[in-house]
């Protein structure tokens, strides 16, 4: 047991206690949390800073306004309803279409139809705080439904893959993409059975995937290979993620980015307590990269930071190869 702990320590694997004590508590000031915990606030900040986010159609902040849902949606065929204070993708309802005959019947990502009043109930649940981790009143956001970039179509089952970039002091240090599967019911959540795929930071090439604790080479639902794909617009994704640092002031954050087929990379949400599964997906510990960044003290802008990290990691990659 201690030997295992020692090996993990040597490989630079970061544990939850250490993440909390050394990074979250030190670099994420508590007063900054509302900026990311409240997705509505994040979105407004991002729009001000000219950072690309999915368009917000409307907000429902109290029970009385729940009936306004129809007005907000208008005749849009697809949209997403999500709680402003949700965690881990809880409470998100993705509407992908509308019944041709009945305007009040909506289609979900999995093909089921639900009525407008069912959506209203969901909104009302959100507003009363069911998905809010503070357990208080919440707001429901109705926003643009991201359409997956066709690049991801072969390795996605329903849903939208989401790219998680871990950003430390403004330097992106590790990334993965989460691919929804049938088992995850179209959700990009590793706990529910989505595949986590590490990404080589400097060139945007995917590594092999991790499903639960097993390594997978093909997507289980489409049988397409997962590894070796180059994520399009990768540098833009990294820059977008790096800018979340200035946006929020958080020193240790996880930026969730989606690739929209029309709008390119969009910031979906920012997480002040990003999980550690990214290490499993990349089959690498975070410590080395964290301490790498700790050595850099110059003030740089986001682009320069991205360039610097990519250079360092590419270099480390070649030296590693040379050694083996």
């Amino acid at each position, binding site marked *: *047991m201690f030997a*295992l*702990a020692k*090996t*993990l*320590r040597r*490989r630079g*694997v970061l*544990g*939850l*206690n*250490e993440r*909390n*004590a*050394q990074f979250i508590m*030190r670099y994420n000031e508590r007063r900054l949390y509302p900026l990311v915990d409240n997705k509505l606030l994040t979105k407004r900040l991002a729009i001000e800073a000219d950072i690309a986010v999915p368009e917000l159609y409307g907000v429902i902040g109290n*029970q009385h306004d729940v009936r306004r849902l129809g007005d907000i949606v208008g005749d849009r065929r697809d949209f997403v309803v999500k709680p402003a204070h949700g965690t*881990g*993708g*809880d*409470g998100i309802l993705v509407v992908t279409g509308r019944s041709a005959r009945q305007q009040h019947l909506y289609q979900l990502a999995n093909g089921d139809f639900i009525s407008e*009043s*069912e959506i209203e*109930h969901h909104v*009302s*649940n959100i507003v*009363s*705080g*069911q*998905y809010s981790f503070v357990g208080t009143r919440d707001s429901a956001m109705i926003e643009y439904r991201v359409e997956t970039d066709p690049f991801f179509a072969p390795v996605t089952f329903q849903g939208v893959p989401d790219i998680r970039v871990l950003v430390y002091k403004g330097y992106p240090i590790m990334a993965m993409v989460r691919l929804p599967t049938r088992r995850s019911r179209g959700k990009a*959540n590793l*706990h*529910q059975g989505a595949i986590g795929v590490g990404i080589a930071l400097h060139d945007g090439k995917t590594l092999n995937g*991790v499903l639960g*604790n097993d*390594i997978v080479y093909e997507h289980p639902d489409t049988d397409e290979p997962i590894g070796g794909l180059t994520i399009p617009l990768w540098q833009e994704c990294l820059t977008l993620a790096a800018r979340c640092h200035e946006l929020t002031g958080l020193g240790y954050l996880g930026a969730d980015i989606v690739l929209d087929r029309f709008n390119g990379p969009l910031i979906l949400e920012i997480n002040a307590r990003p999980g*550690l599964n990214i*290490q*499993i997906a990349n*089959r*690498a*510990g975070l410590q080395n990269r964290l301490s790498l960044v700790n050595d850099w003290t110059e003030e740089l802008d986001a682009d320069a930071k991205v360039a610097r990290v990519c250079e360092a990691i590419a270099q480390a990659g070649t030296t590693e190869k040379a050694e083996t």
Partner: protein
Amino acid sequence: MRGRGYRVWVIAALLAIAGLALAAYKWRELGFPILPKAQTEVWTVEVTVSFDSGPGPIKANLYIPGLTPGFAILEENFVSRGFGFTPNYVSGGRQVQWARRRARGLQSLYYRAVIYKDPAQTESDTTPPFPAKPRLGEPFDTAIDVLIDDVRARSADAESFTEELLKRLGQPDVDQNVELLLGAAPTAAESARVAQTLLAAARIPARTIRGIYLQDQQRRAEIVPWLEVHDGTRWLYFDPLTGNQGLPDNFLLWWTGDDDLLEVDGGSDAEIRFAVQRNVMSRIDIAQRRVEESDPILNQFSLFALPIQTQAVYAVLLLIPIGAFVVVLLRNVIGLQTFGTFMPVLIALAFRETQLWWGAILFSTLVSLGLAFRFYLERLRLLLVPRLSAVLIIVVILMLALSIISHRLGFEGGLSVALFPMVIIAMTIERMSVVWEERGATEAIQQGLGSLLVAIISYAVMDLELIRHLFFVFPELLLVVLAATILLGRYSGYRLLELYRFRELAQKDD
């Protein structure tokens, strides 16, 4: 960073030292027991004084225990209807004086003391002066001189002198000098008195002490004289009849000197009776009574000073920090997940009343049934607060139903379901159903079982008799728990379950 780590250690160390020091003081100095159910012997000694009163005012002086090597007095009472009484110190120890202006007929006065063994009690007399050489007149002086010269020749110091002397005194028929001084068949008291005279002639301070043997169920205990000899640094004790040295374990010193135990002025036919009874008493009670007398500040701010019902409440409340500490360990060191941080502690408290297995079964049943109803409620599309209230109402109804059904079936354990914190259970059901819907049944059941496991473990720890006893008797140990919790708050190593979670990362690269 380094500074903060240092501060945490200092604070934790200070807290732990404060807690341990206070607990150690209470243990060593005040005799609070470390182990539960520690009991000790106590003796109740009752002295009954009776006499016929004369026509005039009455004064009765009775020696009572004062300096008692090896024993301490827990409490004493004087029962003396119509008499005023004043205990005070006199040269022979302690005396109580009962006084009354006028009385008629037979009078009975009682003194009762509860006594327990206390090795810390020693005789604290100062060194006595050398006695004057006694002058008894011939032929006694010559007999004394001869005897002393003889004994002195066969001894080295005060101790061996006394032993040798008492040996001689024990055989009056062998030595004519002894027989002259002592008579043919001396009593212990006579032996002691003569030995005292002879020791005085040898310029060795000595005195007679009197006491009783503490034995169980003695209706009439006897006063036994004992010889005390000062060897220049401390008092030595000798049996005047045998010459054996040392006080017997159960000898309770009552008074010193040759005074009478009881003196009655204005009364006649005085009679005195000793009765001894042995009891067993909890060490906590004894320690507590001692605190009341010796340490009034500690006593006023002690848990034992609270009303008994409040004490019972605290007996339970003091376990919550233990439960919380267990939760810290299981979450931050082991890595178990639970619904709600302290929900398992509250469930564990309920287990204390329901018994563990019944509690676990009832809890699981309650949560499963509640979940089933909760899923049905979901279809009714209720708003959050009414829905929560509905779940709460259902939980109460389920509890009632469970109690009634299990009572009908003859499982009395099912009745205790009413002790579960229903609001906590309702919230658990609500959160579990959200996790169920959003993250799937596996994770919901995993977290549910995790909570139950944590509850069972905290119950097991909180139910340890030693833990319950220690924290009730030494609540200051909570400071130690606080210190440990603060230290764990700085633990940034892996959680045990993380080793499993990240085990792939420890494999060789493929």
